[in-house]
């Protein structure tokens, strides 16, 4: 079980707003996070990953405290080891597809399995600049999975995929998530997207 109760001031158009979220995510669940642009969806994911620090808050994951601003506890991003799919993919221009996965894991069989999952086996030697938008997005998802995270944070991860590829990939990912018991938080800008796979949803209003 992941318990989050945080408060973070955000710079917003026309002044400041406060991102205030208290939520629980059962282990192994898939949660859809949606809300208007600028509400703080990406910031929320980054706070969980330890990339952004909130002014106030507490995050516990399976009874382990990742963040407690009152007690001065803040686990580093490296120790939290969440899988993170960035909205802009954040792929490394100097690495090819296989090297991206090998950067996260030394398990060759797992690397091969991931390449097959993302249908990138034949493109494993290609660098991001030689991949299409959809292929880059798939690689970003695979890289996040390479560390076999307990918690996967995905920021609009399917936006560049065509309908067929998206459905097929989600089906395969669902299987993997079930097998591994991974907890997944997916940010989407479309409130009706991912209804078929999400166990619960979180609306971030932004005020």
């Amino acid at each position: 079980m992941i318990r989050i109760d945080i408060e973070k001031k955000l710079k917003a158009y026309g002044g400041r707003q406060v991102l205030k979220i208290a939520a629980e995510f059962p282990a192994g669940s898939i949660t859809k996070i949606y809300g208007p642009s600028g509400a703080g969806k990406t910031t929320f994911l980054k706070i969980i990953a330890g990339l952004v620090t909130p002014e106030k808050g507490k995050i516990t994951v399976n009874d382990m405290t990742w963040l407690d601003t009152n007690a001065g506890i803040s686990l580093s991003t490296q120790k939290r080891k969440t899988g993170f799919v960035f909205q802009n993919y954040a792929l490394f221009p100097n690495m090819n597809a296989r090297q991206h996965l090998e950067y996260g894991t030394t398990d060759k069989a797992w690397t091969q399995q991931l390449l097959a999952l993302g249908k990138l086996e034949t493109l494993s030697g290609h660098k991001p600049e030689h991949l299409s938008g959809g292929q880059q997005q798939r690689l970003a998802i695979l890289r996040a999975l390479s560390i076999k995270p307990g918690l996967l944070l995905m920021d609009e991860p399917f936006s560049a995929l065509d309908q067929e590829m998206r459905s097929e990939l989600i089906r395969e990912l669902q299987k993997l998530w079930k097998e591994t018991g991974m907890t997944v938080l997916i940010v989407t800008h479309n409130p009706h997207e991912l209804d078929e796979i999400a166990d619960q949803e979180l609306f971030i209003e932004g005020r």
Partner: protein
Amino acid sequence: MDLSPIWLTLKLAGITTVILLLAGLPLAYWLSKGRSIIKTIIEALITMPLVLPPSVLGFYLLLAFSPQHGPGKWLHDTFDLQFVFSFPGLVLASVIYSMPFMITPIKSALQQLPVSLAQASYTLGKNERQTFIRVLLPNIRASVLTAAILTFAHTLGEFGVVLMIGGNIPGVTRVASIAVYDSVENMDYSSANLYSLVLICITFVTVVSVFIFNKYKAKSPLE
């Protein structure tokens, strides 16, 4: 023709470039991360040699490292080191004088990389050092190369600062630029011409290599 000033110049430029590369990479990385008053002051100090007359820098280095005063006296008494009128003095002056040519392009290149690259690396469990070596550095390779070559080229052309701290001792501190000046002073235009031609050729090859390594795109020294 005495070729020792040419060899000495190349040796000085090579050593200066290596020292600045080793010291400049971590320093540029530190400067590229966030802002603070201390960083602003250090950055200003690094950039000052670009606008200060070289003779001013040379004069104060001469005073500071003179074996009769302050740090120079301490270095001489404690470690038997003498920077004035010696090759190590030339290296020290060159490192200070060429520092902006190494630091500024690398810092600028690091700042232009999306912050999400480092963040992605951290989420994969990598620390700052691993991230710098495996992700950031390979993606600013062209800028590092440009910085190294420009530092080398700039050191080749130093005159005022090396004359002030090193003087004109043949085989020790008499670099090519000083040899040109000295030859003209002695009305030996033939030697001055030869030293100058060699310097022009080396500098031309060095600068052309910057453009070749950067795939024919011209880059400003401070880019």
